[in-house]
């Protein structure tokens, strides 16, 4: 798999750091942002292959960010992450255009698999 440029947006820095560690070991580059507005400006400025997006951020709703991404960068691959491990949340995010869904807590393998699947689907 070719190295990807990944943006992780989560106010829980432990999640960002863990994602960074797991994915960088696979050769990917991970940029971390801890709130919605920083995350959104990173999306607008940078060229990312995948965004790992938490649904509950201190300043913005993840769903709101997802909508903006779909409008501004419809080709961008988004994997949503949430602590509310419910199917209805996942369905809603997928309906809004997210490519995959991770229910916290998830393992490194689940993260890698989600990233690979989302990438394949985009191709």
């Amino acid at each position, binding site marked *: 798999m070719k190295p990807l440029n990944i943006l992780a947006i989560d106010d829980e820095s432990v999640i960002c750091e*863990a994602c960074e560690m797991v994915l960088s070991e696979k050769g990917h580059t991970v940029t971390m942002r801890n709130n919605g507005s920083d995350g959104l400006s990173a999306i607008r400025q940078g060229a990312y292959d995948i965004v790992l997006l938490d649904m509950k951020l201190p300043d913005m709703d993840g769903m709101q960010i997802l909508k903006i991404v779909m409008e501004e960068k419809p080709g961008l691959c988004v994997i949503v992450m949430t602590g509310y491990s419910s199917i209805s949340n996942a369905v809603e995010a997928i309906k809004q255009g997210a490519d995959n869904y991770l229910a916290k*807590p998830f393992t490194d393998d689940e993260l890698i698999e989600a990233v690979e699947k989302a990438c394949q689907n985009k191709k």
Partner: protein
Amino acid sequence: MISSANFEDYFFVFRDIIRSVHSSTSLKEVLDVVVQKSTEVLNARGAFLRILNPETNQFEVGAGFGMGERYLHKGPVTTEKMLRDPSELHKVLIITDIWHAPRVEYPQQAWDEGIRMMLDIPLAIKEKMLGLIRIYLSEPRTFSKDELDFIVTVAEQCTCIIERVRLTENQQAHFTHLATQMEKMSSLGRMAAGIAHEINNPLGGILLFSSNMAKKVEPGSFLEKGLIIIIRETQRCKTIIQGLLEFARDKKPQKVPTDVNKIMATAMGVVQNEFYLRHVTVEKHMAEDMVKTLLDENQIEQVFINLLLNALHAVEDHGRVTVQSTVVPARNSIQVEIADNGCGISAQDVKKIFEPFYSNRANGTGLGLAVSYGIIENHQGDIQVFSEPGKGTRFTIELPVVTDPANGKENA
């Protein structure tokens, strides 16, 4: 001596009793009228109406008339002396020798009070004794058949009134219990949703790091062992929290006309393997005339899976689980029953079984039955448990047969 009362007097006594039944809201007031009027019309010294308290197995004074305070406080009256012979439940017992009658527990006190004769009229429904009217007389006399008939009829009236009041009280207690239960569950649900989200985040960190580290340590080492335990336990937390969220979410059921037998078949398919591995047989008696009703298939399936797994855990290997469905036309409902011949649940535990976090299993979350209870409640149904330790447990679910004419859907 023969009683001087005539039929007119009896009629007035009945009239007064019936009036008090209709005008009074208190059982005590009605019973007061009964003892007073009966005493007067029979020209007796006094009367006590005692009601059996099933918890203490003692007779408690429900109403009294004409007797001294001292006599009233002589002590408890126990059932053993009163209930020697069930065949005596529906007739008047005349006690002329109060010193030697086994039913008279305090002969000395009675004698001191000037009592020389007693009449015992049990208040009974079939074989069940609810209480007793005892009429006290200052001197022995004979009673005509009409008089005895009158006394028995008054007792029958009293029995009906007491039973009716008991039923109402029981119903009220049941509703109060349900209301408290609901309140407890909904506040807990709100709290659970908040906690679940907060906990999933730190768990996310733990699981990502531990699952990643487990790959980096030497295979078979203590470190790997420890990390595998951390991973497993974190995933267990995840399951518990998922259950909690499931419980907390006040999800409106997505109801479609469904055959409950089909849902049961799907649920049994899910757990089939587990049953097979434990050599537990499942007996099915599904109603062939089952009607469709509006149900959320996923939610009801979840309830069935919960109950089937509970039954499986309750029985030893080679146990037996019985599944049954019936149509109850008289109540316009359907009933599903899941029973096992397993270890059973103690009466004390049965009371708490639908409460969240109540579990007897080491790895149980205590949410399965609480969630099931909520789901059946959301279907306007009823779930009940009957259990006997050592013999088994039976869960019954009753669901109303509902059609949805607005959408043109039929339940046939």
